[in-house]
């Protein structure tokens, strides 16, 4: 084969390879973009209600309220727990509207996973949202969109991503990258709760100037009971 023939053949092959590469890159991008990763197909309810409830209250990691508040109320919860969800909708909002907004108390959410292993992935996703200042938004929205216990929804990537997106997590890539590593923290707080003697959710503890360390509240059944405990602690 002459040099000219070889050249012509090589350039035709190169053009074909370039065309195939271009097509492959385009297909990869289209497949990636169409993936279920953005959670956009999952309907999340209660966005407006949660946004109104938490509007103007500082969120830092998993703490809601003024970081300088003298009293710290600690809630141990399981995101799959229906009682926690009901408590979050019916009891805690009253405390948030009064004592939290006034800067008298801050509420710290900690995972106590008792329902099943799916709660660990869900809890880690909440912690990753907390790292971007949207922890309580995530928890409250998760509660309002709970499914059946251990039915596969609680650690489903698309569902968690949709909750994170609805909660206002700005950097979903960072959130996704961090949540896997936060399962250890979920297990740590579950152990912490067990060490305190808690075996049900939600369970509460409180720390304040008058408690002399951590004081166990267990399960205060009403907002009034919770408010009284906060008053006493401060």
């Amino acid at each position, binding site marked *: 084969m002459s040099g000219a023939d070889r*050249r012509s053949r090589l350039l035709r092959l190169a053009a074909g390879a370039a065309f195939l590469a271009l097509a492959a890159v385009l297909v990869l*991008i289209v497949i990636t973009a169409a993936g279920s990763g953005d959670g956009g197909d999952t309907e999340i309810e209660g966005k407006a209600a949660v946004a109104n409830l938490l509007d103007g209250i500082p969120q830092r990691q998993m703490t809601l309220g003024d970081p300088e508040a003298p009293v710290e109320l600690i809630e141990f919860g399981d995101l799959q727990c229906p009682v926690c969800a009901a408590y979050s909708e019916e009891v805690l909002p009253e405390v948030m509207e009064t004592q939290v907004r006034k800067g008298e108390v801050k509420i710290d959410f900690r995972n106590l996973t008792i329902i099943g292993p799916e709660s660990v992935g869900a809890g880690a996703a909440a912690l990753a949202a907390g790292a971007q200042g949207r922890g309580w938004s995530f928890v409250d929205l998760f509660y309002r969109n709970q499914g059946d216990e251990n039915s596969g929804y609680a650690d489903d990537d698309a569902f968690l991503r949709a909750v994170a997106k609805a909660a206002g997590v700005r950097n979903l890539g960072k959130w996704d990258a961090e949540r896997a590593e936060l399962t250890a923290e979920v297990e740590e707080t579950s152990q912490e709760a067990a060490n305190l003697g808690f075996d049900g959710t939600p369970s509460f503890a409180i720390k304040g100037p008058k408690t002399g360390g951590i004081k166990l509240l267990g399960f205060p059944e009403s907002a009034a009971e919770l408010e009284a405990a906060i008053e006493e602690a401060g």
Partner: protein
Amino acid sequence: MSRLSEGTLQRAIAFVAALGIGVAAYIAIADANSGSPVCLGGGDGCETVARSSWSHLAGVNIAVFGVVGYALLLATAFFADDLARFAGFVLALGGFGYSVFLTYVELFKIEAVCQWCLASAILMTILFGLCAARLIIYAGAPGATPERA
């Protein structure tokens, strides 16, 4: 106007490929040490990208594939025959295409930019240009350096 000699193109390919090996090796070593590359300009983009699920392919850090790709490109710079010209072009084309895809992933899926990955993408783009120029200008030409026996 005089055209670029093949030897000049080969030296340029070797130089850029060596830089690429350095960048990819740094990312791979950082990952192997259970860490992540440090973004020189600050920020946590490198850490975010390194910790994302996109940073590994079949359990292997993609920077390892980068080291292998750059090393093969470096090897093609030492020969001046059609096989080396065409192999260099195909390798650089594959690396360039994958770099485009990874940059898309960084910007639109991970939503973070790793300076080291960006540096590698730029080096691979330069290599693609050099290898394409080498093939277009010298395909079919006798080697500037002795061909293999």
